[in-house]
């Protein structure tokens, strides 16, 4: 059993220690944001933060992560209460298929935490490891610039400037209520959940 701290909560995970974090996040903890893009550390779709630094979860075995703070997109806010980065991406409509976006967001989050006044050149350099095939780059850049404003502005509600420690309690989605054992809980069949499509 390995204990992982994800988005401010602790989980006991029974996956093998050499399992890449990505599979544990998605399959054991049912966190959807980090994506499988290549499994080779080449595309950035799996990017999460480990102790605030962007990390490719597809090549990071969980045995390395005990005691470290892992943050995923789910830790930045929720559907009902999105954080500033998420709000910015929604307001800028910064997605086409959206598959690469969580990876982009985590890299951006790391940058803005460290350097809230990052320049356009710095943002571009920061995102270089991440691929977007649909060509949403312009909007991703706009969304990150907007997020910087939202994070810094006086209008930002308290607690919306996100640090890994503060990321924790915002999760209300059933996805992460996996409790002690970490394995996949039984959930309603996908087809039934989609019967009345949410839209």
């Amino acid at each position, binding site marked *: 059993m390995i204990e992982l701290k994800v988005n401010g909560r602790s989980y006991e995970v029974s996956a093998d220690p*050499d399992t890449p974090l990505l599979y544990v996040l998605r399959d054991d903890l049912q966190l959807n944001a980090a994506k499988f893009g290549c499994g080779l*550390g*080449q595309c950035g779709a799996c990017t999460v933060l*480990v102790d605030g*630094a962007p990390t490719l979860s597809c090549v990071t075995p969980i045995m390395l992560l005990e005691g470290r703070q892992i943050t995923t997109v789910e830790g930045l806010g929720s559907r009902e209460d999105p954080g500033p980065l998420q709000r910015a991406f929604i307001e800028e409509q910064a997605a086409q298929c959206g598959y690469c976006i969580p990876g982009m967001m985590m890299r951006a989050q790391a940058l803005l935490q460290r350097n809230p006044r990052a320049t356009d050149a710095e943002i571009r350099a920061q995102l*270089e490891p991440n691929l977007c095939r649909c060509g949403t780059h312009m909007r991703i850049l706009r969304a990150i610039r907007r997020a910087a404003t939202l994070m810094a502005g006086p209008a930002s509600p308290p607690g919306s400037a996100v640090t890994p420690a503060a990321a924790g309690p915002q999760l209300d989605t059933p996805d992460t209520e996996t409790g002690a054992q970490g394995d996949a809980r039984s959930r309603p069949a996908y087809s039934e959940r989609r019967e009345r499509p949410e839209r």
Partner: protein
Amino acid sequence: MKTFVTRRVVIRLLWVLGFGVAGLVVYAWRSALPPADPPSADSFNADTIRRGAQLAALGDCASCHTAPDGETFAGGRPLATPFGTIYSTNITPDLTTGIGRWSLAAFERAMREGVDRQGAHLYPAFPYDHFTLLDDADGAALYAFIMTRQPVHAQTPDNHLPFPLNMRFLVAGWKLLFFHEGPYQPDATHNLEWNRGAYLANGIGHCGACHTPRNSFGAEIRTRQFAGGEAEGWHAYAINSDSQSHAAWNAEALHAFLSRGWHEQHGDAHGPMAPVSQSLAAAADSDVQAIATYVAAEMGNPKHDKPAADPPNNDTGAAIYTAACANCHDGTRPLPFGGIKLTLSTAATGETPTNLINVILIGLHPPEGTAGAIMPGFASTLTDGQLESLLSYIRANFGARPPWTGVESSVREARSRVSD
């Protein structure tokens, strides 16, 4: 009595110093060469320009003389030296900020003597101690190439050198002690290709600028040519008989490595060597061949350090390797895209752990749009403790050498250089 003697000694010393400085100033003084009208492109033969391009590829002028995201050859790249930061100059033929008004004589004087058109001494960060070997034909070809480049208006930033190092005339003293002017003297005990290789490698190729250790004045130690050096936080491996490479280098392997940037038995070029091999793709193949012949001869049959005794038990390191590295490095995908088997990697067998630490932390990232091995960096994945376990595991099990010393401080130093 004591005071009297001391005062006389001091006065005498001051006179000696004064004469010394004056002598140095006189020695150091170089005349300004008159500004020339910029030559037109038609005044150069197309073949000469092409030859110059090949030489510039060998010398990889663009690497130092281009700022990150800057115009090629327009200078402005900061070079960190133990003495301070020096910025590379604008060598485009721009009339005001470049060398557009340099005559061939001025160009040759800079390359061979380390003096610019105005007569100022150049810091040996510009490796004229190598370029001094250039013969007339090659010098003229390089001049033709440089003068037909796109002029770019870009003012070179001021160097950050503390007093008195910012006094250029002091460089003359350095030259007095350490600079041996060319031209290249052929060695009759070797054949033509060896000599050509020596001329190129030690001349325009300036391999020793990285691969030779330097003394405390920053000058290459000539008696230890190619015994290994430092460049931008990386270790430039020994490429003489001190080579620690697991597989022996021969001319053929060197030629392949230099022109392609990788070799099945040796891995990919990384760190500062990567842009060098990218540049060599545009060099004349026969020149690269000659360099390979020469360097292979210099390596001879290296004697490796004694292998280590039985590696100590290192479960943590083994587990980390198996979980994070083995999939690529013990995989079936061949080089250049698969990870090298670490028994073949000089990063594991080399004298210091620096390169292995660098590669693990930074990874490998080819220039955008170019096919090349991509290795993710593990800076944010591994703690220092995990990294040290992994390093000692790799050293013992793949390098099969005695453990490195000073690993902790090497790791700390590398971390401070590598941002997330």
